[in-house]
């Protein structure tokens, strides 16, 4: 177990080094930060001076080396735009994104699991057919269309849910601004989290359905029937536990997709989270912030997958984490 976690830590560091290198390598292609930050009236000499101050005249390798030395001490640089350490900027926006993603995941698990199971055990049922048809549709409709549709129906026509912003937030322990504890905050979560959930739902419905159908064909399920076990026990203990093994793995991989879709969702709903911040950073050519965002996301990805593997190890007795460390 300890070996497994240590290996994961090494892996995480390795991933972050690669991500930071990549984000540094692309920064020159994004545009000129100096031009973005100064008005037209600033003289060329002043521009050159700022350029020198920011260290932009050094070669990429030198810049990266300077960045890496500071990064070891936990300093990923200072945002050009916010004039604050990038990690502070990002961690201020982190709660919004985490809460959005969390709600979306709850919605996905809460809806995809029963739908997938139903579609597998009663394939001819009208509801299952509808579920399968909808999941096919869902796979092919881009989420910004879903979002626009939801906004049109639920905010503009029905006035049921707000279409932008986070609403009222509550500070928890001085660390975390949460929208989960006020009615207004929760109302603001509805449309963005549904939109985000919509992006991941079809894959999980189809995956759970396909896996469950396969598991139900297996000998051990037949043996369970032949023992005269109650139907509920066969479906929800014998079959579901086996069905979830590949679903857990795919869930970890889909964490990446989730991050990508938070950027889209947050932009659509003006959600003040990391994704929205990232889009702004890109348009402002705020290179330190872009690099830091990518590194943080990489870290989240590694942490998520470590958790996923831990859960997998708990569910699947044939896996021993220490032996299959990676």
């Amino acid at each position, binding site marked *: 177990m300890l070996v497994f976690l240590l290996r994961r830590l090494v892996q995480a560091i390795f991933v972050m080094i690669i991500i930071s290198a990549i984000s540094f390598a692309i920064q020159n292609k994004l545009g000129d930060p100096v031009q973005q930050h100064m008005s037209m009236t600033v003289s060329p000499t002043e521009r050159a001076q700022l350029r020198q101050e920011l260290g932009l005249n050094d070669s990429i390798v030198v810049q990266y080396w300077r960045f890496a030395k500071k990064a070891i001490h936990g300093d990923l640089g200072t945002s050009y735009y916010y004039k604050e350490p990038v990690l502070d900027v990002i961690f201020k926006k982190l709660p919004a994104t985490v809460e959005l993603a969390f709600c979306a995941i709850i919605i996905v698990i809460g809806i995809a699991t029963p739908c997938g199971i139903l579609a597998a055990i009663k394939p001819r049922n009208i509801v299952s057919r509808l579920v399968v048809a909808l999941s096919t549709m869902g796979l092919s409709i881009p989420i910004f269309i879903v979002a626009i549709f939801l906004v049109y129906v639920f905010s503009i026509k029905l006035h049921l849910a707000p279409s932008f912003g986070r609403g009222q937030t509550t500070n928890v322990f001085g660390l975390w601004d949460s929208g989960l504890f006020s009615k207004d905050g929760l109302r603001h979560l509805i449309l963005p989290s549904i939109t985000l959930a919509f992006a991941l739902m079809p894959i999980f419905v189809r995956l759970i359905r396909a896996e469950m159908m396969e598991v139900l*064909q*297996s*000998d*051990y399920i*037949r*043996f*369970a*029937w*032949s*023992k*005269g*076990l*109650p*139907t509920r*026990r066969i479906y929800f*203990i*014998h079959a579901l*536990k*086996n069905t979830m*093994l590949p679903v857990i793995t795919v869930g970890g991989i889909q964490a990446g997709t989730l991050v990508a879709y938070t950027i889209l969702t947050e932009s659509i709903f003006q959600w003040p989270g990391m994704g929205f911040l990232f889009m702004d950073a890109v348009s402002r050519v705020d290179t330190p912030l872009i690099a830091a965002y990518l590194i943080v996301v990489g870290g989240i990805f590694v942490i998520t997958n470590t958790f996923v593997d831990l859960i997998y190890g708990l*569910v*699947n*007795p*044939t896996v021993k984490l220490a032996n299959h460390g990676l």
Partner: protein
Amino acid sequence: MNLLSVSNLHVNFHLKGQDLAALIDVSFTLNRGERIAIVGESGAGKSILGFSIVNLVDKPGYIKSGSIKLQNKEITTMSLPQLQEVRGKRIAMIFQDPMMTLNPVLTIGVQLVEAIRSHTRISFKDAKNIAIEKLHSVQIASPEKRFNQYPHELSGGMRQRVIIATVLLLNPDIIIADEPTTALDVTIQAEIIQLLLDICRNNSMALLLISHDLGVVSRVAERTIVMYAGRVVEEGPTLEIINDPQHPYTQGLLNALPQMALPGQRLNQIQGSMPPLNERPSGCAFHPRCPYATDQCRQQQPSFIHSGVSTVACFMVEDMINDAHLDDDEESR
């Protein structure tokens, strides 16, 4: 009264718009404590017969007609809760591949205890005691330790013992064993068969052994049913079937045993292979492979006739018996 009586059972499969017969007019009876073997090549319908007895034929298969009576209760028309009462408690099954039969993510203990507790109101602790006692009775060493282990921690032979223990938990009247040793090593095969035989004898349980291993069959079963292409072709006492097979198919099966060939000689085999479900020939289904086939065999399905203590469905045997009767008549004249 018979413990189990299957009469005129027809099982069909809906495949690609066709309704194909997998079992045709199968009838037999099983008495308390009796051991019957069902033999035949792959595809003869042996396993389907085993599964249909507890109404576990997977879709697209279904029981088309006929009756399966457990004492006086009709199984084919039972509701699912009624079936769940019968399954495990009255009729239990052992499957072919012990590697696939136990659920990989549940402990042996959970899989044993759940079988008891879904049939009887009993505490977990009492159920555990029964389970451990049964594990002991199938000669599993340190059953307390095995109870908490997962299937992958056990060998194939050990798993088949666990499965046999599962089957014994509720003292069923009938055990259906679908090729219980096919997936095991030869040395372990003998042990498992001996175990099964002892258990049935000691508890006077009836056994329906589905097998293609005639060596095993001759050791275990008192009666043997030979199946071909979904039909019973010969039935009788095992000794009789092995020493004096009547149906050309049974003769072919026995001839194909390696013991029947001399060293260095090619093994005998029945020419051709079992026809798939959608290509069953007319008349007697065995006629394309039968060395004695006549025009009558190609057109008509032979009915069952008694030949000594066996019953056979074959025109050749029928003719032989009729001739013998004629000879008797002439002699007596």
